[in-house]
């Protein structure tokens, strides 16, 4: 994947947001696209909104964590924000006046919590940790978060959890080089599928808009596309116990000699953005004559986004082509991708 496919595309830097005093690890847009949350090594969460001309820092949440805040994620209603920290806790913040206040601190993981994310129904919160487990919590009205399940399916540090866009199925990415999927079954949560193909840790993953594909990115410098095969599928892929099977249908590699730290699949435009240890953001799209069982993905553009590793990329859920990134270089940046 050396050359960009010839299309009229442009990835333009819109704004640089400064303020964090340590590596910025994660950025996340609120469901209405109006607030961008960022978090990092300086133990804070910053909330940015756009006034008439530019994005500015509206609030800094400082009292939640004792160590690096590794990731932030919004509930589907937009009222709640979950933050995962190296201090072993997950904080849940609720909108209060012009800012957010911490309404719950979830403990239980044995060491660093890497990721926390709400289900599309808003009913569940999943967290994951270096302790190799994924926890599923119930989100209740009275701010009592009950742990429903502790899932020990991985044999290594779990780096990220991401929910399916439509149903309450959650995926996890791990240092053990695999990704796994979990669902609720008979009042408990179980792992029902393993995505195995990468040769090193999986740093990030995301679902396609219809939830039938997953993209993963890895320390092994490759990106893989996976497809869901349901029981009784016409391609005759064998399944077990009535569960779907996920197969790797495309591997994109050889374009970088550095790990890829994050990947995001836009639910509005179907474009994939990657965050690289080579300081680049790359945009990928499925080729025109692509076969769903053997799709081809091409890089349509890339840009030297930051002066150090890009740790996270995320698409706005409301504005097509609007993208945020963050980096070890202490900055958050906003971009416009135009086709």
């Amino acid at each position, binding site marked *: 994947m050396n050359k960009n496919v010839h299309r009229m595309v442009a990835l333009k830097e819109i704004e640089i947001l400064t303020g964090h005093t340590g*590596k910025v690890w994660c950025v996340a847009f609120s469901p209405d696209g109006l607030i961008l949350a960022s978090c990092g*090594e300086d133990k804070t969460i910053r909330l940015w909104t756009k006034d008439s001309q530019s994005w500015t820092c509206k609030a800094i949440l400082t009292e939640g964590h004792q*160590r*690096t805040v*590794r990731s932030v994620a919004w509930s589907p209603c937009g009222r709640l924000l979950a933050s995962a920290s*190296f201090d072993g806790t997950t904080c849940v913040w609720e909108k209060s006046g012009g800012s957010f206040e911490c309404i719950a601190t979830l403990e239980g993981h044995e060491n*660093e919590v*890497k990721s926390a994310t709400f289900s599309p129904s808003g009913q569940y919160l999943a967290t994951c940790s*270096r302790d190799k487990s994924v926890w599923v919590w119930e989100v209740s009205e009275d701010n009592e978060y009950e742990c429903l399940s502790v899932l020990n399916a991985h044999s290594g*540090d779990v*780096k990220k959890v991401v929910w399916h866009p439509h149903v309450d199925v959650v995926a996890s990415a791990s*240092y053990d080089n695999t990704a796994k999927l979990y669902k609720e079954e008979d009042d408990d949560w179980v792992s029902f599928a393993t995505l195995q193909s990468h040769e*090193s*840790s999986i740093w990030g993953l995301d679902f396609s808009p219809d939830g039938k594909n997953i993209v993963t990115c890895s*320390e092994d410098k490759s990106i893989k596309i996976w497809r869901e095969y349901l029981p009784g599928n016409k391609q005759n892929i064998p399944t077990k116990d009535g569960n779907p099977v996920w197969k790797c249908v495309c591997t994109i590699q050889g374009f970088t000699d*550095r*790990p890829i730290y994050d990947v995001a699949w836009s639910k509005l435009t179907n474009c994939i953005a990657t965050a690289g*240890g080579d300081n680049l953001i790359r945009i990928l799209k499925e080729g025109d004559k692509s076969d769903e069982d053997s799709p081809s993905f091409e890089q349509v553009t890339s840009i030297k986004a930051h*002066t*150090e*590793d890009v740790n996270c990329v995320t698409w706005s859920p409301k504005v097509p082509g609007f993208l945020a990134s963050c980096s*070890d*270089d202490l900055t958050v940046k906003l971009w416009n991708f135009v086709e």
Partner: protein
Amino acid sequence: MDDKLENINPKLFKKTAARPISEIDLDDSIEDIIDSREIFDLIRGLNDPEHPLTLEELHVVEEDNVEVSDVEGIVRVKFTPTIPHCSMATLIGLSIRVKLLRSLPPRFKISVEISPGTHATEHAINKQLADKERVAAALENANLLEVVNQCLANNG
């Protein structure tokens, strides 16, 4: 932790002579290009966690095992633990990484690995040392940071 040293009789090596200073080095208007000798000079004096000796004296680091490209901003250091089951290997690797992180411009991508074939669990250790998130979290641990700082102490 055991009171007995793991490697009671380490093999010792002589230090390399100091680098001769040339006219170009003294000219402030020319920006120094970082080469493997400069990287080696940064890490040769690191203290071994167990013995009152430097990594150079124990041949854990050698100039030949340092690769640098200033223009590409890449540094690769391979280090050789004194014995194949050395339990200090991860700590030594981490100390080398921290020294380089603190000394080099942030544009440099740093890789620290065990010299192939010199440690029983080199794959597992290399994987840990390469994982930037694990390294960042480990360095937030006050006890570990203290031990690492001791390896870096006294011009280490």
